[in-house]
């Protein structure tokens, strides 16, 4: 999955944020905050070819059923698309 903006992930004492650089600064107007699942997925996005790969990775890492994982991942990806990040 291709990221359209340059964002650097930082984890500060357990809290994860995305810091914009380059032209992303104009759109971001500050920071993006990720929850634990968002931080986990963010690292996988550049290599992931489809949502199924993300679902498989979440099922391997978390105790969650597939339907819930797919719903949460879809919501995350939709949010990124709305922000023009994905």
């Amino acid at each position, binding site marked *: 999955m291709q990221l359209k903006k340059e964002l*650097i992930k*930082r984890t*500060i*004492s357990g809290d994860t944020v995305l*810091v914009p650089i380059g032209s992303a*600064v*104009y759109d971001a107007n500050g*920071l993006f905050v990720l929850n634990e699942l968002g931080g986990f997925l963010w690292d996988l996005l550049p290599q992931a070819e489809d949502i199924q790969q993300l679902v498989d990775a979440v099922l391997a890492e978390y105790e969650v059923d597939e339907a819930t994982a797919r719903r949460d991942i879809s919501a995350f990806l939709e949010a990124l698309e709305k922000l023009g990040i994905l």
Partner: protein
Amino acid sequence: MKRTAPEPHIMTYLHQKGRALGLPIAGTFELTPRCNFNCPMCYIHMTPEQQRQAGIELTAQQWLQLARDARDAGMLVALLTGGEPLVRKDFFEIYSGMKKLGLMVSVNTNGSMLQGEILEKFLADPPARFNISLYGGCNETYEKMCGLPMYDRVRSNIANLRKAGIEVSLNLSITPYNCQDLEKIFRDAMELDVNIKASSYMYPPVRVQEDSYGAGNRFTPCRSAEESLRWDRLRFTPEEFKKRMENTAALAQLAPECSTETDPGVRCRAGSTSFWLTWDGKMLPCGMMPRPIAYPLEAGFAAAWETIRNATAALRLPSACTTCPKKPVCPVCAAVCVTETGAFDQVPHYLCQQVEETVRLAKEEL
């Protein structure tokens, strides 16, 4: 004029967490004491001769290593300042390097150099915010105060940044040299649609002049209070101004507390979740204070930060300030005490007089 945007919740939260855990969330990097302006009240600007005697500026690589160490310790926010940081030929090596570390970088500048190639580079990769110091409302005032008639250029540069969508905030030092321009400066800020913060209190420049404790090219305390009130009258609606005067008068009449302990010397984030690195590589809680000092280049960043945190936590206000009835309306802090008197435990009488006059003027307005 824009009202000050509230700090994002995440930043407030990270600072609160950082205070509990001892994390340096924010750092100021004073890249140079050099400046193309020469303002009489500046606390840092040195002549080339003063600088030669005082030390050597850190290299870009040294700044980036300190930034890397600070980031690894938890720093998220970095402020590049000077002097005028853009006079450094390697400024963008430091700026871009810090951004690539995942830091939110803001820049303090006088705004005079934000043109041509420098502007192009910032347009391609903007800072989180520019904090631009404004020194007057016309070329004549700039020449009198800074030595260069730069007003038109700075105003045009600010307009270009705003047009590009870059965040700008203005800082104004109200001094005997520029106070006649106050109304014009306020109108400019409104026209440019930028937030502006102003102060008529000037710290004695003890970091560049060791004999300047309690001194400086500044107003008398009473005049400083008058100018501050003038600024409040401009920036607030009549209703807000009246409420502010009422609050000031009422708060200054509260009964003094009975206390056996003196108040903490620093109530802001300095030395708690933020640090200041001077141009020659020393760490301070904030740039106004000449001490406590730590040495990150020699001791390492983590050890220096620990030293500054502990030393700052130990600072106390003078006992007379703790029980003073004007405490609720007085901005006294350790930096004011030490720069006004040379000691942390001495009452800064300049500020006492300014606060007394502020309260008197507030009561007059009722």
